[in-house]
């Protein structure tokens, strides 16, 4: 039943795409497309959430007679797929709702409207796919539709390059997954997931599959060092699509990884957990450091996706390490933490991209250095963005903290792992995770403080007005979810229990049994957390203090000019900027990580030219990894280019030479 409902929703989304092409010149097409997407996503969300919570309609399969003639297209709704479909369709619902208002400002709606529902349908199909062929073709469909959306504003500087790099990385990713599935299916070509699940892999093949999956799914998710396309492509798309790409599509990539490595590959080797941990830790810290150096609001958010994907992969890596050592309880804890963070990140990252979209429509600016003081013109957007900022910085009582707390708890259990390498690696990764959490807080003080607080740094920021009701509804719904998942995490953990059970054959203790909504990952004597109590306590203590003071001490307020140590300067240019805010952290970490260098031109006294400062940052990964590849490809292409201009004699020589060479090889081979 559930699968049929889902397919009707997907069909409605797919049918909307050509309809949007047909009606692209009409004004109501926008409302039509987003309304259909909203209704379809909401129905799909309700269906999968119901299926996940009640266990009804799970493990249902569906076979459509399309695709490979002897295979058909298999689809299946199991707990893992249902959990990720909740994320996909929650993101879809909110993005459609937001799009109803935000889409009004789209200059070329014909470049967005047809692809938006198709993109949503593609993500749904990937998660539902139950054979390799369907998985890969829907994966590619998802990539191409999102690529079209990235290219929606193709005339803006840099977007064409972003689309090009995205296309290259997406092709590389799909190729890796294709090879990975080829290895999984073996020589007999059993492409159905059920067949793959029952195939035993030799350890060499398993490690090759792991490497290829890390490359394929990791490049889509934005794992360092495969993240280079992400901060270019995600911000280039319209903001509700950025939210979908960052909040949801990266999660579909995580789904691909979990499906292959946890489900299809069979029991993992212990070192596979270590490899995943290493990539996760590197992504977490490098992502947030890049974000701190960034002054473009949307690109900052995109880099934070890299960070959060790192946190998710840390959880998954721990899960693999525990599962390989048959430590079922800790494996369940680590995997739950990762999956909970998948949900949490999709919620607050969508919220933050929506907020940046509202700022973009109100001011036309993404550069934080030209914003400031928006809290006065856009109070509601500012409030929602603040909630998202606190949540992503892993601060209690919001949801980001709970999943990171669970990850920390999993790290603390891993002292029991027997392998020495893991014993060294895990505390180091724990340190990286703690570092990334602290840096994320610094980064979001910058993002919120420079954008929304202070004084306006430009005329457009001065005149910014609040965004529309649809966008605000979507943002506040997500902000509410941030709080709800933060104060009542037990329900979410329990909802994930069947998923985790399917992945590592164990689950966390049922949280509903603990009093007062306390969550207990392992045992009450070991650790517990109660977000609800903390939230209530903070609220009560703050209100009590405010009430007592206002009632019995003083409540008078006198407005005056800022004090600023007696030397207030009227110019907003004297405020701290995003660049100056990040400068101390750049000095601490940047010299090593980015080879940051400051170049200061100070004209001599009497010279009227302005002083200038340039900051040079190097992306060492790009220089070390991608630049050589690009160079080799360029040189090879130049060389091969000569072959286009041979004479007919030259071509004939080439052909006969190739023939002789092949025959010689054949003769030697036999």
């Amino acid at each position: 039943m559930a699968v049929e409902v889902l397919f009707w929703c997907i069909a409605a989304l797919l049918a909307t795409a050509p309809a949007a092409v047909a009606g692209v010149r009409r004004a109501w097409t926008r409302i039509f497309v987003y309304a259909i997407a909203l209704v379809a996503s909401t129905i799909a969300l309700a269906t999968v959430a119901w299926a996940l919570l009640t266990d009804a309609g799970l493990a249902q399969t569906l076979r459509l007679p399309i695709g490979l003639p002897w295979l058909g297209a298999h689809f299946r709704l199991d707990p893992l797929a249902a959990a990720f479909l909740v994320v996909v369709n929650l993101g879809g619902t909110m993005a459609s709702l937001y799009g109803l208002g935000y889409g009004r400002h789209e200059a070329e709606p014909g470049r967005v409207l047809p692809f938006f529902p198709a993109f949503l349908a593609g993500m749904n199909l990937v998660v539902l796919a139950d054979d390799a062929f369907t998985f890969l073709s829907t994966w590619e469909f998802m990539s191409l539709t999102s690529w079209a959306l990235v290219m929606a504003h193709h005339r803006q500087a840099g977007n064409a390059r972003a689309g090009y790099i995205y296309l290259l990385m997406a092709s590389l990713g799909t190729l890796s997954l294709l090879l990975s599935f080829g290895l999984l299916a073996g020589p007999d070509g059993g492409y159905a997931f059920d067949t793959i699940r029952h195939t035993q892999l030799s350890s060499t093949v398993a490690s090759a599959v792991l490497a290829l999956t890390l490359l394929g799914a990791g490049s889509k998710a934005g794992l360092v060092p495969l993240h280079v396309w992400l901060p270019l492509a995600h911000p280039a798309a319209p903001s509700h699509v950025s939210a979908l790409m960052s909040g949801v599509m990266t999660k579909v990539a995580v789904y691909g990884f979990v499906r292959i490595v946890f489900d299809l590959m069979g029991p993992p080797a212990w070192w596979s957990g270590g490899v995943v941990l290493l990539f996760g830790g590197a992504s977490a810290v490098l992502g947030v450091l890049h974000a701190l150096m960034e002054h473009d609001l949307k690109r900052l958010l995109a880099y934070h996706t890299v960070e959060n994907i790192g946190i998710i992969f840390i959880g998954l890596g721990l899960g693999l390490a525990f599962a390989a050592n048959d430590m079922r309880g800790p494996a369940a804890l680590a995997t739950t933490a990762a999956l909970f963070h998948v949900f949490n990140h999709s919620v607050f990252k969508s919220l933050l991209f929506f907020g940046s979209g509202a700022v973009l429509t109100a001011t036309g600016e993404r550069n934080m250095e030209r914003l400031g003081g928006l809290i006065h013109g856009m109070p509601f957007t500012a409030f929602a963005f603040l909630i998202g900022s606190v949540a992503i910085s892993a601060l209690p009582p919001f949801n980001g903290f709970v999943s990171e707390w669970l990850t920390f708890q999993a790290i603390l259990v891993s002292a029991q792992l027997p392998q020495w390498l893991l014993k060294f690696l895990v505390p180091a990764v724990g340190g990286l995770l703690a570092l990334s959490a602290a840096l994320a807080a610094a980064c979001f003080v910058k993002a919120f403080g420079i954008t929304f607080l202070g004084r306006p740094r430009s005329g457009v920021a001065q005149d910014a007005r609040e965004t529309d009701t649809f966008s605000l509804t979507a943002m506040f719904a997500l902000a509410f979810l941030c709080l709800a998942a933060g104060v009542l995490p037990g329900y979410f953990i329990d909802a994930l229990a069947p998923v985790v059970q399917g992945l590592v054959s164990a689950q966390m203790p049922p949280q509903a049994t603990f009093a007062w909504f306390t969550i207990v990952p392992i045992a009450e004597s070991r650790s517990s957390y109660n977000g609800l109590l903390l939230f209530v306590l903070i609220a009560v203590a703050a209100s009590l203090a405010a009430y007592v003071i206002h009632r019995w001490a003083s409540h008078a307020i006198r407005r005056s000019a800022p004090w600023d140590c007696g030397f207030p300067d009227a110019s907003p240019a004297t405020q701290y900027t995003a660049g100056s805010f990040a400068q101390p952290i750049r000095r601490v970490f940047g010299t090593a990580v980015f080879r940051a260098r400051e170049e200061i031109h100070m004209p001599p006294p009497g010279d009227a030219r302005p002083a200038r400062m340039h900051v040079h940052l190097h992306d060492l990964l790009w220089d070390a990894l991608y630049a050589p590849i690009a160079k080799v490809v360029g040189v090879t292409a130049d060389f091969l280019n000569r072959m286009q201009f041979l004479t007919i004699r030259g071509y004939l020589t080439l052909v006969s030479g190739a023939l002789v060479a092949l025959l010689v090889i054949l003769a030697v081979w036999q």
Partner: protein
Amino acid sequence: MAIIQDALVQLGQLLLVLLLAPLLTGYVRKVKARLLRRQGPDLIQPYRDLHKLLRKDVVLADNASWVFRVAPYVIFATTWVAAALVPTFATGLAFSPAGDLIAIVALLGSARFMLALAGLDVGTSFGGIGSSREMMIASLAEPALLMIAFTLSLLAGSTQLSAVATFMQGPDVGLRVSLAMALVGLVMVAIAENARIPVDNPATHLELTMVHEAMILEYSGRHLAVIEAAASLKLLLYLSVIGCAFIPWGVANADQDLAAYAVSLPVYVIKLAVGGFLLAVFETAVAKMRVFRVPDFLGAALMLGLLAALLLFVSRNV
């Protein structure tokens, strides 16, 4: 009966930390003054200051937003809740299961987040410099503190501070290198987080190296009073954490009767007095360091914490 006792202890502790915190600040100031052969203000001067500030008008910058006005109360509340989770004179607090050591660190992080935002709100250069430096310091101090929390909880098998205190009182502790490193690291973090010399100077204004004071420069009246109270609470909290984790003797346990508190309360006050005295001596003996030397100082704390945790990871098979 046990629940009522826990609740009473919890309530008593909530009030105790609130009442004791300004006294601790006054005491540290007094000791510092005496070490400099000054008379120094009365021990109860901080109470007088708070009382006076609370009754004064708030002078608010024209462009201050609601964040600026809400922040003091949020900072105060989160710090107070964090302090309420630390066992001071007795374990077995009613709220103890609500948050462990990691949650306490994160609650302090929430307070700092709001304080840094408040520093940016009015849009002055001093506020910005304070916020920016505070977050730089926190970006190293917080992971260091978390690594120390890891060390303690790996030893005690629990991240709950009550359990850590109980374990440290027990016979299985022994002398460990990890504990020594964690203690040194924790003291370094506590100095940095409470804006003490050599990282920051709580007694200066109009100095380019100030951090905490720069953020709260625009605050006045009751807002300033609440923030000052929160700062005192934070100092008390750190001394209490050091006390309950590293010198746990005298902390009453959950199963003991009320008579035990007659001993544990004075012992706690003595611990605070010793801690405050050592802090004052240390502050008087060292010079303030340049702000870009602070990362080296805190980097050392982070490495100590990491090493302490790493040693436990490789040496233990629990």
